[in-house]
């Protein structure tokens, strides 16, 4: 899809010939995320979709106790310190952002009076500022009013390096100004097509200025409110035991009518995923359980009990195999996989192409992941029904043999192909996790048939994913030929996600292996396009650029995507809760209710 075609489609949406939803679907088909697609429309001057409320209760409260289960409990309740989704989810009961992302990637206002747009000028034409109108009459749980000062304070708090906020990336490159008591303006240094990051979604929750102002920067860890949140949310804080329990009760002054439905909630932590699934699907003790990392077969068996169901929400997480472009077996200046080396065999495109057709993704999906992992050809991923059509995948041993044979890789007496004295022998590592070991076995078997010898290696997750500089087995060091893990897409925009293939991001000894480009693939064209996309004023051109980047990575077999991993939750039959792959699990907590 080229630029002109995109413009034509947007024009059709504008005059009402094409629905927003089908526009989003077409964008998804070419590898664009849903939030990105709706942002395109917004920047092009098409109004955001108005939320269609399906909320049924006609009065506040009366729903009793909501019991939810996170098998890793929240350990802290300051959203700016949140280490993982568990902490963000826990914080979201009390704190709220200006707006959240729904499942289709549309912004839904929470503390904002409306979503900024071109029509009323709240979204600057040059893409350098956004004006947010705040909802009036909102109060914090202690009765103090919520104003623009609070919003500005959050920016100051999070951008201060001494605070060491995990949300700092969102706030360091922007400037926030108070326009009046209920208006704030977010200013960008350069034109920013994806403008909805600060104060939006999982990293955008707002904490009260009057309680945190004295505890900014180096003193941030001493704030008593870190452990006793006072927010604007639908539930007021009651009790918190880190790792075990977060509880709260209905906020009688909540700013949305008739909400919330439940009188109180309990978010219990601890245990393991299987028994959490059991507590919702089999015994019905709990209404909701988070992150069902359980084999689909077991989930299906539990669902037969009829007490609950499994809810699957597509997101951007992808289980993929990385191909090392550097030589992991030669040490240069004290590091292996150094940028100064080139992989002896994987640098041959024929070998990479052969490997790509040797990964039997359909079998991996069918026999290992089931509903919880969908075979895919793309790195930037979306719901299964919207999968990109630009790229495709196949499993074909004959084709692999053919490619290798033509490229001059001949089978030796041991059945392993070789050329110029170099054998096709690879070490393939991943973390210890049953589905991953099963996937390794499937790939190894297919490779054997094509004359490629695979040595399987599995590393304990706590070592593999650690940033321990002294350990050679971490995924960022990548001291082997192939490796596999899931990379997460935390933001509903591909810019940051696609940064992991840029030259400047290469993981090296110099940057203590903190670079995000693990494969160390370097391609000037890719860098140039990505850099151009970062400052591209025209959102349509920018979109076309990201589509191109995805295709480059796939066509060059920098990585081989295996399965897209949607978010999987368990829900009681009566619970009505809208999930989104682009925001917190509890992003819509104010609208959760039980159907009679």
């Amino acid at each position, binding site marked *: 899809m080229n630029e002109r075609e995109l413009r034509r489609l947007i024009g059709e949406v504008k005059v009402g010939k094409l629905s927003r939803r089908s526009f989003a679907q077409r964008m998804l088909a070419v590898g664009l995320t849903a939030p990105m697609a709706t942002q395109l429309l917004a920047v092009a001057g098409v109004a955001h979709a108005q939320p269609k409320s399906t909320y049924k209760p006609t009065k506040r409260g009366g729903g009793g*106790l909501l019991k939810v*289960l996170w098998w*890793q*409990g929240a*350990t*802290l309740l*300051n959203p700016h*310190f949140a*280490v*993982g989704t568990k902490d963000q989810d826990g914080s979201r009961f009390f704190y709220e952002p200006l707006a959240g992302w729904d499942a289709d990637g549309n912004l839904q206002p929470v503390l904002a009076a409306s979503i900024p747009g071109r029509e009323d000028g709240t979204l600057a034409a040059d893409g350098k500022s956004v004006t947010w109108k705040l909802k009036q009459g909102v109060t914090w749980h202690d009765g103090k009013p919520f104003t623009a000062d609070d919003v500005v304070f959050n920016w100051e708090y999070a951008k201060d*390096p*001494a605070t*060491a*906020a*995990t949300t*700092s*990336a969102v706030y360091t490159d922007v400037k926030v100004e108070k326009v009046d008591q209920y208006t704030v303006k977010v200013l960008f240094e350069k034109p920013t097509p994806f403008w909805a990051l600060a104060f939006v979604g999982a*990293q955008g929750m707002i904490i009260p200025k009057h309680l945190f102002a004295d505890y900014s920067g180096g003193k941030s*860890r001493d704030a008593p409110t*870190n*452990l006793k949140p006072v927010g604007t949310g639908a539930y007021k804080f009651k*009790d918190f*035991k*880190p*790792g*075990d*329990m977060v*509880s709260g009760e209905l906020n009688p002054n909540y700013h949305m009518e008739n909400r919330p439905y439940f009188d109180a909630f*309990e978010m*219990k*932590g*601890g*245990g*393991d995923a299987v*028994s959490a699934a*059991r*507590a919702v699907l*089999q*015994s019905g*003790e*709990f209404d909701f359980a988070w992150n069902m990392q359980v084999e689909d077969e077991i989930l299906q068996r539990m669902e037969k009990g009829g007490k609950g169901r499994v809810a699957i929400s597509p997101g951007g997480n992808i289980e993929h195999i990385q191909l090392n472009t550097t030589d992991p077996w030669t040490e240069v200046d004290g590091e292996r996989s150094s940028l100064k080396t080139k992989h002896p065999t994987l640098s041959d495109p024929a070998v990479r192409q052969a490997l790509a057709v040797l990964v039997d993704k359909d079998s991996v999906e069918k026999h290992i992941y089931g509903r919880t992992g969908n075979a895919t050809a793309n790195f930037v991923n979306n719901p299964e029904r919207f999968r990109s059509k630009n790229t495709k995948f196949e499993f074909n041993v004959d084709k692999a043999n053919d490619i290798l044979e033509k490229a001059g890789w001949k089978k030796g007496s041991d059945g392993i192909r070789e050329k110029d004295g170099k054998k096709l022998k690879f070490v393939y590592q991943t973390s210890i996790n049953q589905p991953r070991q099963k996937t390794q076995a499937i790939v190894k078997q297919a490779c054997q048939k094509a004359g490629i010898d695979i040595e399987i290696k599995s590393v*304990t997750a*706590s*070592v593999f*994913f*650690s*940033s*321990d500089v002294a*350990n050679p087995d971490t995924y*960022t060091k990548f001291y082997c030929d192939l490796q596999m893990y899931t*990379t997460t897409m*935390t*933001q509903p925009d591909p810019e*940051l*996600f696609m*940064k*992991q293939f840029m030259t400047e991001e290469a993981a090296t000894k110099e*940057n203590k292996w*903190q670079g*995000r480009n693990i494969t160390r693939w370097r391609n000037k064209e890719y860098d140039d396009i990505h850099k151009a996309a970062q400052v591209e004023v025209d959102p349509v051109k920018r979109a076309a650029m990201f589509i191109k980047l995805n295709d480059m990575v796939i066509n060059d077999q920098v990585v081989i995507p295996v399965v897209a991993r949607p978010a999987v939750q368990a829900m009681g039959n009566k619970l009505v809760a809208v999930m989104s792959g682009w925001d917190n699990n509890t992003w819509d907590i104010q609208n959760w209710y039980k159907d009679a």
Partner: protein
Amino acid sequence: MNRQYIIRRILIAIPSLLGISVILFGVLAMAPGDPFEELATNPAIPPEVRMALRAKFGLDDPVWQRYLHWFSAMVQGDWGFSFQSRMDVDRLILQRLPVTLIVIGASQLLAISVAIPVGVLAAIKPYSIFDQIASTFAMIGFSLPTFFTGLVLILVFSIQLDWLPFVYRADINATGWAFYGEHIKQSIMPVVVLGLAQAGTLVRFMRSSVLDVIRLDYVTTARSKGIGERKVIVRHVVRNALIPVVTLIALQLPAVFGGAIVTEQIFRVPGIGSLLIAAILANDTPVVMGITFVISCLVVLFNLIADILYGWLDPRISFR
């Protein structure tokens, strides 16, 4: 005699606790992993944040320096600060300790109140049907690991029969009888699992201990003096047979804490065991140090209690 003895015992305990802390700290420092690991895999969080946090919590200092820092703070009563929850470790442990003590205490009481009468009755009539049944169950009790019995109980009583909840909730929204009722209901399974595993060993031990004593001459003398059988058993036999059993109970307490970690995980009991597992998985060194220190202190304390109980059970044992 007793006070001096107790003081001496406590003084001896200090170097062993110190040694424990050095070894623990060393092992934890050598173990792979990083408390801010989750930040490393999240692309939305810049590496500088992780570096700043590491510097803030002193993780970049050499191990001995970190140990000295921890030790000097500990001596002043500062248990440290959890990396994960940004909370003082002593507060974190105090939140969890009562639940563990209640569950372990209740399971020990259950174990003792089942094991002692059963063991004594089995020994009085050895190889009777009662003895056979008791021995069989004792065998099953200490052979089956708690994670197995726990799961079986959950499947039977929670999933099939739907009688008991299998997720333990420390905060219960009720008052009066309902509050206690709920607490008892949710404690039944973890307490039974832990208690029965303990009782298995204790029954076997009690039985053999009573068998040893019951054949001694003074028991025959007591009987021939015409003291009632009941009195002979309770006053003369059981009291003497208890001495090795008391040692066993005291020495087994660390093992009970170990078993409780697994049980706490299965039933989601928010005790120090589940806190310890979470802290180990998250490489939260100050919390791991704090909890292991509490457990070491408990072990030392219970050993001391066992020694003091000896004196009461057998006045011939004196302390010097």
